[in-house]
């Protein structure tokens, strides 16, 4: 499990590993160079300003002597000043390169993850999308992803940096003075341990705060959503009281965390100061005894000072790594969901004429709850078929099986004699147009929405599709016509208008098979008839499936299928079906007993 997650992470980083290593190397160099300056100050204080013997070795000693030794430096202190700056410049360059490379690596990785997630989600099965919690999934794709990015760019680097710093400083300090080094590192493990334990512990408290905040938000949300109830029952004061309590509870819970934080930072600061104090005092005592120089003392003070923050932070970073691991887990869960069509190129891509057959098809979404039961029917090319049935009878499932949103479990669905399972999914869907009952429009312009899947469509094609879908005049009446934005930033379309836009969108592709999944339900009867009439004129060779319960719609079909509890109970033409007892006749009788032609159910046509 753990191994798999790491592999997933590595797969995102792929292609950037070299850069990652470069970034780490530069960071190590930067950390090391940052430790040189205290040594120079030590040199300046001890061997130039004071009169201690030079404690340099090898190359550095010969460099020191080449310049002219103490005699020259004493009159030209600027040389050491410049050296300080030079080292800082190197340190700066290394730091810069490290950060630059790490930015490239982490941002590329993040982009990689985003694209992969987005694409993977697109290909996840229909059943996944039906049950998924959108908010949660988006959170995984955004904030969880960001936590992983930060792990790559900050946390991991922070750990490596702290370790480099500690080990290098320890080595330098040991070479300067062993006793003082021991003093300097006594508290380090304590601080790391305390920090780690503390941040582990405080996580529980954070969770409590989150819960308190969640409760407060729920009160607020319920209040806003039930504002009419609140007002009508005059419960404003009661509600205010309830919210104040929740808000106060949140405040108090959070303050517990604050107090703990205050204790933590106060206490660790004290421990660190004790550490510095110990160095100062023992260093001073030893210096008076001639055991070490002022410069060494200053260098130790500087090193300890520089290390306090990374050490205190190390415990925190280690404790926080759990978060990144949780996030990685949440993302890998998405990738664990198997998408449809692992290889999109496989399968047949036959020319599709539009002859459809269902041969003893049974299907169930959940074990033991059959949705379709031994369904058999046949549709000739170019025919119009209407399907009548109640909610949950299995109408939509028929359509889903045809375009392979699901695959048949027993029996076979064939098009032009070819089992759809053998046909490439993409190809299949390209050839079959579906208009859903509740179509989704994207927040773009109307034109972009209509040309959504056929971006090369001409203005004329778009307009003519809109005329067929009987939406042209509605669009024309918008301020910006076809360039009107849809959704939050533009017009809000009614259910019927959305359906008609979706019809136009589907019509823009030339399909051999067209399916209307109750997609005229929000359109009034007259417009419904007009659209069907237009379709007939324009698409005479297209096989059309219409799911509806309007008799006026059903009766014009070449064949009507009546589906009840997953079984086809009747099939035939209107005239055949009204002569036999059954659901169709029952519906027909009610509708005809009242003047169905004057009914008003949806919106009137433009």
């Amino acid at each position, binding site marked *: 499990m753990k191994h798999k997650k790491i592999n997933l992470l590595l797969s995102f980083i792929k292609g950037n590993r070299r850069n990652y290593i470069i970034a780490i190397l530069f960071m190590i160099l930067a950390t090391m160079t940052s430790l040189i300056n205290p040594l120079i100050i030590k040199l300046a204080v001890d061997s130039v300003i004071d009169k201690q013997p030079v404690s340099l070795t090898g190359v550095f000693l010969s460099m020191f002597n080449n310049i002219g030794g103490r005699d020259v430096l004493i009159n030209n202190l600027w040389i050491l000043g410049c050296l300080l700056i030079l080292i800082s410049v190197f340190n700066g360059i290394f730091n810069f390169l490290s950060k630059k490379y790490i930015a490239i690596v982490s941002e590329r990785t993040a982009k990689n993850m985003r694209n992969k997630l*987005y694409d993977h989600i697109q290909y996840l099965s229909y059943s996944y999308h039906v049950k998924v919690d959108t908010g949660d999934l988006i959170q995984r794709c955004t904030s969880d992803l960001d936590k992983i990015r930060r792990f790559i760019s900050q946390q991991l680097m922070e750990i490596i940096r702290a370790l480099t710093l500690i080990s290098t400083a320890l080595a330098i300090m040991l070479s300067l003075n062993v006793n003082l080094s021991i003093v300097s590192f006594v508290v380090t493990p304590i601080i790391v341990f305390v920090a780690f334990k503390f941040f582990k512990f405080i996580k529980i408290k954070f969770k409590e705060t989150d819960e308190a905040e969640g409760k407060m938000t729920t009160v607020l949300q319920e209040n806003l959503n039930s504002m009419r109830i609140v007002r009508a029952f005059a419960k404003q004061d009661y509600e205010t009281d309830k919210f104040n309590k929740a808000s106060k509870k949140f405040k108090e819970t959070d303050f517990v965390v604050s107090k703990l934080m205050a204790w933590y930072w106060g206490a660790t600061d004290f421990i660190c100061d004790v550490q510095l104090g110990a160095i100062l005092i023992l260093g001073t005592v030893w210096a008076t005894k001639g055991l070490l120089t002022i410069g060494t003392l200053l260098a130790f003070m500087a090193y300890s000072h520089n290390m306090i923050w990374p050490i205190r932070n190390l415990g925190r970073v280690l404790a926080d790594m759990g978060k990144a691991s949780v996030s990685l887990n949440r993302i890998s869960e998405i990738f664990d969901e198997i998408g449809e069509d692992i290889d999109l190129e496989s399968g047949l891509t036959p020319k599709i004429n539009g002859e459809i057959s269902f041969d003893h098809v049974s299907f169930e979404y959940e074990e033991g709850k059959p949705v379709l039961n031994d369904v058999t029917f046949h549709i000739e090319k170019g025919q119009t078929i209407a399907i009548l049935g109640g909610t949950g009878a299995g109408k939509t499932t028929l359509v889903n099986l045809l375009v392979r949103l699901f695959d048949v479990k027993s029996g076979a669905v064939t098009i032009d004699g070819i089992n759809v399972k053998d046909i490439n999914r993409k190809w299949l869907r390209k050839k079959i147009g579906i208009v859903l009952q509740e179509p989704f429009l994207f927040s773009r312009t109307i034109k972009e929405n209509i040309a959504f899947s056929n971006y090369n469509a001409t203005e004329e094609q778009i307009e003519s599709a809109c005329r067929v879908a009987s939406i042209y005049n509605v669009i024309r009446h918008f301020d910006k016509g076809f360039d009107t934005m849809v959704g939050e930033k533009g017009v809000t379309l009614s259910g019927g208008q959305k359906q008609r836009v979706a019809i136009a969108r589907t019509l823009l592709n030339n399909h051999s098979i067209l399916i209307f999944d109750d997609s005229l339900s929000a359109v009034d009867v007259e417009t419904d008839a007009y659209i069907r009439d237009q379709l007939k004129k324009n698409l005479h060779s297209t096989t059309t499936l219409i799911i509806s319960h309007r008799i006026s719609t059903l009766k014009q079909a070449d064949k009507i299928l009546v589906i009840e509890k997953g079984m086809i109970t009747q099939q035939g033409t209107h005239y055949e079906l009204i002569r036999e007892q059954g659901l169709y006749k029952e519906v027909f009788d009610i509708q005809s007993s009242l003047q169905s032609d004057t009914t008003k159910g949806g919106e009137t046509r433009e």
Partner: protein
Amino acid sequence: MNEENQEYNKSFDKEMWKKVIKYILRHWKVLLLLISSLVILSGLESVTPLLTRYAIDNYIESGSTDNMEWFIAIYFLVILIKASSIFALIYLAEKLFLEVSHSIRKDAFEKLQKLSFTYYDNNTVGSLIARVTSDTWRLTGIISWGLVDLFWGFFTILTVTTLMFFLNVKITLAVLGVIPLLLLVSVYFQKKILKSTRESRKYNSAITASFNEGIQGATTTKTLVREKKNLEEFDIKTEKFKSAAIKIAVLSALFFPIVSALGILGTSLALWTGGVMVFGGIVTIGTLSAFISYTQLFFFPINDLARIFANFQMAQAAGERVFTLLDANVDIFDHDEVLKQYGLVKASDNVPKLQGNIEFRNVSFTYTKGEQVLNNFNLKVERGQSIAIVGETGSGKTTIVNLACRFYQPTSGEILIDGINYQDIPLMHVQGNLGYMLQTPHLFSGTIKDNITYGNLQATQEEIEHAAKLAEAHDFIMNFEKGYGHTISKGGGGLSTGQKQLICIARAIIANPSIFILDEATSSVDTHTEKAIQLAIGQVIKGRTSFIIAHRLSTIRQADRILVLDKGNVIEEGTHNELIANEGHYYKLYTSQFLEEQELEILN
């Protein structure tokens, strides 16, 4: 996206900050203590290098450790006070932060209870929640900690500069020489970073929006086979975001080394000028070491200024959103005359019972969005009468009910309750006499009992059960293991829609309102529940003036009078039998409705 863009381009909003300061000053004691702890902390931090200086000059240089116990004692005292002041500062800063955000949330919530529905029409629930929670949180958090940064930085610079001047003027001047350069670099980089940050935020929200659409429109994408093109479009966005993010990272990667190099420049200037003076015997080595520490202490707050500035800009954006809510106009309230006569009437007060005669007199109404819904509308309802309102979406049904509840007020004309213009009596007198049942049953999380007593907080158990029995809810409630104590969670807690409706009716019955509003659901429930609902509705409308926005025929038939609305006008009016005999609009509506109900019954 656009909103975000504007936010970060705005200049200093003085008015907004004044309001924020008022909130902070409500907790002036905390603020004062916080500032004191910051003064102490920055003072002590500046003193620490002097201790080192003392140790070097007095012990190491002289080679003796006499009286060192005093030094140790003082040192420990200093670090103890320093640690305590760090504790105090975190404690106080968080206290300020949490108290101020609690105050703002409280005020915002109270405001939300007063704002009229016009406000709710123009603001989504999501954005209102964000204002009360995350925006308030961000605003107060940044301000509290920003104040800490600012005061700490200010005092540190002040004390360090003073101490440096005190130690040696010449070295100090050399060190301070770096500052103009530092400021120049800071301003240059921060401007650039801020600009890129704005850009990256824009792409970031575009990416979130794409994920959202991609997920919600997944089925549509599948049926239109657009996956490839979608990814291409998405890739453009992620690529831009990536570039912007790298740009920001590179800019700050460049900025920080330059700043710290400048800090080092200060240090080396101190070392150079100071070193020379050590030879001359003008300053001691201890002084020089203090200077080296000071240069580092000194530049730290300056480096931070840019970050603080950027944060304050973010706080300003959040603050502006919070204050548009806090400052929003309440447009339905008791005017002065009413206040004079009745005093301040609160929602929790007991209000006198109204009889329930309602009259609309020449009422016109226009929603803010511009469309006139009612024009010169007249209607007289006697006490105890039940009125069913039928008509298509947009015919004005809901508007009439909203006006009767005084959720909105007429644009012109007047509405009289018991003969008095309802704007001349306290709002709570009207709303305290209302019972309301919504299209989709709205229950609060809590127990069933909590939900029923929402109608009357003082109700006894007997009253509760009585109401539940009248509402046909008692039996199914008793079927729950905990009976009235059954918890209704967010998801609904095992209650069907019909059962929820029955509880809502019980809630309305227990409130014993003079005026009852029913905005009926279209959703179908099983026949058994349907019958129960009809019985319960019959109970609740008995003896009360009621308005029913009806969809079910059975409900419509129960009403004393039926109004058929079209485009804000009553086109037909009468009892069910009269209207059916007329064979007009109602007849058509009735038949089509009947048809649909019958058909659904057969199909399912």
